[in-house]
């Protein structure tokens, strides 16, 4: 790594194709990851792991649509993340305990709290619906499960979110506004 820019991304004097891809995709991947995990630090871990796996294969594998493939990787990693990350991240996090992502926008507290009550698969289905704007078939393809399973996940997950919004929302936290009631 050679230099830092003021735009939030370091650059090399001779950035690789992968560097360019990673810098361009990180904001949207981070947004999806935040919806998948409901936690800023887990979101960054998921983005970092996804990009590391893409980077390892970059130039050795052919990615027809690398952006879409990265999202598929991230989605499936998230489904498997509880078991996998619990095993790997304690090692990976050594010396990396300081927060690395910054909350720059407002978040709805009720949504974050509600996401914590959902299963990883429910969070995944809802994130793909609301962040990626995929339909049931697209979600099923991305998650590697049946459309019926997706409908069930969306139905139960949506009901839980609505219940939480009705009970605890709407509240907004973060960004430049601190925490307040809307």
């Amino acid at each position, binding site marked *: *790594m050679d230099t*830092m820019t003021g735009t*939030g*991304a*370091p650059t*090399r004097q001779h950035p690789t194709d992968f560097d360019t891809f*990673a*810098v361009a995709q*990180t*904001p949207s991947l*981070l*947004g999806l990851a*935040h*919806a998948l995990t409901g936690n800023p630090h887990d979101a*960054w871990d998921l983005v*970092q792991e996804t*990009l*590391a*796996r893409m*980077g*390892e*294969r970059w130039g*050795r*594998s052919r990615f027809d649509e690398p952006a879409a493939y990265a999202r*598929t990787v991230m989605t*499936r*990693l998230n489904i*498997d993340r509880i*078991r996998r990350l619990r095993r*790997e991240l304690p*090692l*990976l996090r050594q010396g990396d305990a300081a927060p*690395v*992502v*910054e*909350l*720059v*926008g*407002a*978040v*709805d507290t*009720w*949504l*974050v709290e509600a996401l914590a009550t959902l299963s990883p698969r429910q969070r995944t289905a*809802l994130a793909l*619906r*609301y*962040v990626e704007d995929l339909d*049931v078939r697209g979600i099923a393809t991305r998650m590697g499960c049946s459309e019926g399973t997706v*409908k069930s996940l*969306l*139905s139960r997950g*949506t009901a839980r*979110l*609505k219940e939480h*919004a009705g009970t605890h*929302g*709407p509240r*907004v936290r973060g*960004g430049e506004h601190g925490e307040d009631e809307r």
Partner: protein
Amino acid sequence: MSTTEGGTTEERDPEIAGAYDRLGRSLDGPVDMLVRVEHRMRVRRRQRVALAGGASALALVVAGTTAALTLGGDDQPSTLHVTDEPTGPVSTLAFTRADGSTYTFRDIEVTCKKDPDSARQLVTATSPRKVRGETLLEPFLMFQASLDEVEDGRTFTLPVDDVATSKLPMILFFATDEGGPRANELSSAQPSTGTVQVLHASCGPTPSLDLKVDAKLGSEVEQSSMRLTGELHAP
């Protein structure tokens, strides 16, 4: 189209959509993002090598012509005499060096153990780890597979490499003592080609494994791919 309490699964609830939109735009990544991704890649690679060779096989470096060997990762390695005598399993697994010569992994041990994370039964074949410190003294080979994936026999067409999961059904790995300044480390992941046939595998009082390899394994360290061929019959 199925129905939820508030509509259908194809519909987007406006309040939820708005909250997700704000959530998706709320984070800014670290300024040294690429550095951190590269660090993660290096950690993952070290983990793969450690998986294949144990902690003492980290950062393998091409050995000189020393005759000493170490088993394990002690700071002050014990020195033993090398023996090439087969100790049970019969192996003709061999890789071809750049100069056309071959090296045969004759001393192979087959073991079984349960993966504590997945509860899968793993069958593993390894050659002795002969290292001094971080220096690889002789080539090292490891094959590992989930028993439930191979006990009825299975042919793997390489590469076996799913970037989106950690649960690979099989991994074949070997490290050479040439290709400096670092040893070449090769695996059945991308961009490998060829086949790995598991003819039989079982875990009992005496684990057994019959293996046939005809493959060109890809380098994990940006070096040349190398051919690995031959058979293993254990016990």
